[in-house]
């Protein structure tokens, strides 16, 4: 459970001590790397690697904003990175220390530039989409064989949701994901910061909220894999994980992931170096190590997420590079949209709206 581990990590963050010269401290998402890479890095450089994990952007941001996090490399998502750059959390990358920087995929770099102009502070680690995870059998039972499993109509049309409520629907507890999706469904600009446009999202989400069993950003992996629920609106890699867990358990649950045809949110997790990093040189060494084509490919082959490294693509296994849910084709890629951080006042309106949608008050 994300919230809980986050609480305990906050308590522990005070215990993080300043690193000495031969250490480099990394703070990344949980289950987001092939751990053999960590050993390889230590063997190649002789630097002690301390690798901690988090499971929500909010927890990472709280540590960064409290100051002196003690970490050398952190991996926030683009929208969070954007605001953290404004707060002065990061230092600019020194490209002279990143000999593998040429491997960066320009298509992804062009999109991440909206969070980090000129990509001065960050390099993409991995990226993915937000969409629909469906238990094929259960949804067919409830909505019939022609259920719109690749359309937002599945979850934003109250008539569908009324029926799906029987078998259980989970949605991300993240207004910054759900409100853009509701706007995309209406044909509005998903990245709108205009309060009047944002208010329209409430009109989509409020009627379907009573049919949502739970708004949560992590439990859907298990719930979907166990067959407790039939639909989850969540992150691509998580739903693919649920698919694999169900297949391993051989429990007869068959999960499919689809990016909605109306457009899906595309998000980016970015490697960056805090301004007060104890070992910025070591941080650059680590980022350069990950930017190596074979290392980056090994990470993606392990976690089933796409990366922002063009040179790595020839080393990806067919299961990853050939899966349209991970590496969408050009036509789908065109339809993916990105969003930017809400300013503080808008953020408060959005959070308040989200509470109202969820709790009715």
């Amino acid at each position, binding site marked *: 459970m994300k919230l809980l581990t986050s609480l305990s990590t906050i308590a522990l963050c005070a215990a993080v001590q300043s690193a000495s010269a031969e250490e480099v401290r990394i703070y990344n998402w949980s289950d987001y790397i092939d751990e053999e890479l960590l050993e390889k890095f230590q063997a190649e450089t002789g630097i002690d690697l301390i690798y901690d994990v988090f499971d929500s952007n909010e927890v990472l941001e709280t540590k960064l904003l409290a100051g002196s996090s003690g970490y050398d490399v952190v991996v926030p998502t683009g929208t969070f990175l954007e605001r953290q750059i404004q707060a002065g959390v990061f230092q600019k990358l020194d490209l002279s220390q990143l000999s593998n920087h040429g491997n960066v995929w320009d298509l992804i770099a062009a999109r991440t530039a909206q969070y980090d102009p000129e990509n001065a502070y960050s390099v993409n680690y991995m990226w993915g989409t937000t969409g629909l995870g469906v238990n094929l059998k259960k949804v067919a039972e409830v909505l019939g064989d022609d259920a719109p499993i690749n359309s937002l109509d599945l979850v934003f049309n109250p008539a569908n949701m009324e029926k799906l409520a029987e078998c259980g629907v989970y949605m991300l507890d993240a207004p910054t994901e759900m409100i853009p999706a509701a706007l995309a469904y209406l044909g509005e600009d998903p990245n709108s910061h205009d309060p009047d446009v944002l208010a329209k999202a409430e009109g989509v989400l409020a009627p379907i909220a009573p049919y949502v069993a739970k708004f949560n950003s992590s439990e859907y992996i298990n719930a979907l894999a166990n067959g407790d629920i039939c639909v989850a609106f969540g992150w691509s890699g998580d739903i693919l994980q649920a698919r694999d867990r169900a297949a391993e358990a051989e429990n007869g649950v068959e999960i499919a992931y689809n990016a909605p045809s109306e457009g899906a949110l595309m998000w980016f997790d970015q490697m960056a170096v805090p301004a007060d990093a104890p070992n910025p040189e070591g941080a650059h060494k680590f980022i350069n190590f990950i930017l190596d084509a074979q290392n980056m490919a090994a990470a993606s082959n392990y976690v089933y997420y796409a990366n922002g490294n063009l040179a790595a693509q020839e080393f990806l296994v067919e299961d990853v590079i050939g899966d349209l849910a991970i590496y969408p084709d050009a036509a789908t890629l065109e339809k993916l949209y990105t969003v930017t951080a809400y300013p503080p006042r808008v953020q408060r309106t959005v*959070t308040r709206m989200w509470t109202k949608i969820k709790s009715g008050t």
Partner: protein
Amino acid sequence: MNLGRRLLISVPYGWLVVLFLIPFLIVFKISLSDYAISIPPYTPTLDTSEGWSGFAAYWSKLDFENFVFLAEDSLYIKAYLSSFKIATIATFLTLLVGFPFAYAIANAPEEWRPSLLLLVILPFWTSFLIRVYALIGILSNEGFLNQFLMWTGVISEPLVIMNTNAAVYIGIVYTYLPFMVLPIYSTLEKLDGSLLEAAQDLGCTRISAFWSVTVHLAKPGVIAGCFLVFIPALGEFVIPSLLGGSRTLMIGKVLWEEFFSNRDWPVASAVAIILLLVLIIPIVLFQRNEQKQREQNK
């Protein structure tokens, strides 16, 4: 008073000052500041290099704006009230379950009591989080409880318990039960059995003797148990977020959202300060009242 004794007494006071009073004042100070995109994410921060003028400038920027904000949006008052309601009902249910427990243990043969008490405390040996997670496995639609009930034929459709307030009550009663049982047991254990005999000799029925003697004398334990359950239940965050549904409105969740989603440390601090006051004021009033009664009885 000699020095050694003073030192000894100063230890708990020192503990309270360092670990309660100072953090409380820091939180209070943050609640008077404003949100900012910076490290730390609020303004103003004290600039000691400017000396007194810096301190004066700092002081003039503090205000009670955040508390006014909390009063203006009905969300917060509703969340406090809803937490209060949930904590009250849950405390009552825990008492309902806990009292017979304590009564049974206190009346068990003396050689059994340590083992029975051990059974009450035993769940504490497992992490709180794991116990709440285990309840998810039991209460969910495909969980053990529903599977068992459907297997026995009591129900044909799974009961929806998970993600409702009922699951929150079950979670609170289950996890806080020892806090209710232990204080009640300790008062019942000391109960003089001859008082009950005397009551019956003087014409009480068994039931009225139970009410006027056992329950009356157990009152301090009941009150202590209720406080021990009610206070943590009011600010509970883990149980409603794991077992409750999105319509379970509790102040702990609102606080989390202010701190993490809005990153508004000042408003989150104001919410926490009010929660603390809401808890402390009734307890202080209650204790005053108790003390007065005790003095009157003398």
